[in-house]
């Protein structure tokens, strides 16, 4: 996998890898379908994530979504700004609305490329 490449999960998370580090968030499509995000539950620091497991929760008024870890690795930073301003996820899902940074140990094997993810979204929208 090329560095800086963004990959996606079928559950609408994105993961951006830079060397041994990866940053994770939810996609624009995900935030739109949730509506106004009111609360985010993030994993504890140092938690060892396993690819595919639930690592957190995003909550809107009408829905709650689990966030699935797109990779295996240790949580080294969480975006604490989200705890006070969960609306950042609506405003800038790929930027300021990021959720955690992980010291990478391995990626989920079924990650999608940008193009594959776009197709998935098209399908779901139908």
């Amino acid at each position: 996998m090329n560095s800086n490449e963004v990959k996606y999960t079928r559950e609408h998370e994105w993961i951006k890898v830079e060397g041994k580090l990866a940053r994770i968030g939810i996609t624009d499509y995900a935030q739109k379908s949730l509506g106004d995000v009111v609360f985010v539950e993030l994993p504890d620091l140092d938690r060892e994530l396993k690819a595919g497991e639930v690592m957190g929760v995003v909550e809107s008024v009408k829905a709650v979504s689990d966030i699935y870890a797109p990779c295996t690795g240790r949580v080294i930073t969480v975006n604490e700004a989200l705890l006070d301003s969960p609306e950042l996820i609506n405003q800038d899902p790929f930027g300021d609305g990021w959720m955690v940074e992980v010291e990478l140990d391995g990626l989920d094997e079924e990650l999608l490329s940008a193009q594959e993810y776009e197709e998935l979204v098209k399908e779901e929208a139908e």
Partner: protein
Amino acid sequence: MKEQLIFTKSVAGRKEGYLPPLDIPEPQQVSLPDWARRKDTPRLPELTEMDVVRHYTRLSQLNYGVDSGFYPLGSCTMKYNPKINEDAANLPGFAQLHPYQPVETTQGALQLMAETQKALAEIAGMDAVTLQPAAGAHGELTGIMMIMAYHASRGDRRRTKVIVPDSSHGTNPATAALCGCEIVQIPSNPDGGVDLEALKKVAGMDTAALMLTNPSTLGLFENQISEIARIIHQAGALLYYDGANMNAIMGYARPGDMGFDVVHINLHKTFATPHGGGGPGSGPVGVKAFLEPFLPKPVVRYEMQDGRYILDDRRPLSIGKVKAFYGNFGVVVKAYTYLTVMGGDGLKAASEKAVLNANYLMSLLGRDYHVPFAGPCKHEFIVTPKNIKETGVHTMDVAKRLIDYGYHPPTIYFPLIVEEALMIEPTETESKETLDAFARALCKISREAKDDPGLLHEAPHNTPVSRMDETAAARKPVLRWVPYYE
């Protein structure tokens, strides 16, 4: 009109006394050790009785109940709650009984419970009934636990899956999950019934139960029910009946005869006990004879030998207790009173008129609203607004505009499988005049949607508050009053 919080009306030192002074002589009084004593004072309001009575009277005036007007809230059966029921539950001979009194002092109450059980069993076509669950969802929990206990008693521990249709109420899957089951959701067919092919595919050796309402949450009678029961029973699983919609079929058909093994009944819907602004309800559960040993403890029954009613606790296969004591007895008294007044013929007439009212109202609305499922419906039906794309007027707007016309809105956005659903349940106690007036209001609203959609978007107009900012409420929850010091 707005009413301040009761705490802000408090005046330090004001009080009302209700008790005579302590009559234990001082030398005989004790004091608590320091670690056990409360150091601060809870900030409860300090008021006179009149202050309190005025406050809650004014709050009551901000509410809307069945006694205020038409309340066609689908799936909730908001029928009239007869006043005799309230008085019966308040009789000292019922209201002032301690749950641990010796049974020889509570024979009248136990008889009332036993007779209610018998009547509900007859109405549902079941062999035994427990009155313990406190509401519908609690009945579901009791029922699914009994099903799991039954499978386990046969050494059949592979059965961990509970099937629910996509039109089911949220309590169904949530209950099954609470029992440790995995949920399998199956789609509805175009007529709103169970998709038999989908059901056949998923029903198997790992299926514990199928949970169903009949009539369904769409208000339609599931006429393939015998085939569904055959598929489920052939797979070795059991059939669970969510009785929220029982008001449609009393005296016409019985879940027991349809093949259901377990049934819960909502006394706070079908049997006219008031909903209380969110409870207390009561959710009795009926079962076929083979499940009787699993009923929660204790069981109320007549003991021939002693010639009296007893509370039977010695039940080795019981799922245990689902709450303390014996259920919401006070609510059961109300339902018993209703049963006594109505009788078998009255209950059948109630169902007949509930279905008549629903079909009549559906006919009146057919021109101005989209009716996704043709009739006959049972006790409730679904309509959706027409031309949503053009007018921008959604179900929410229609519901809120109904408030301006003096009505409680129907259930909205449920079941989830119909977009923009308005689920309307008029109940049998409403008159033709009321239904006609309500239909006129809804038709007028559909015209307003075309002519003046803004009016609907901003509805309701004459209430103490208009639409609330739910996002703000959930982002920064304010769940209690705190004193504000300047």
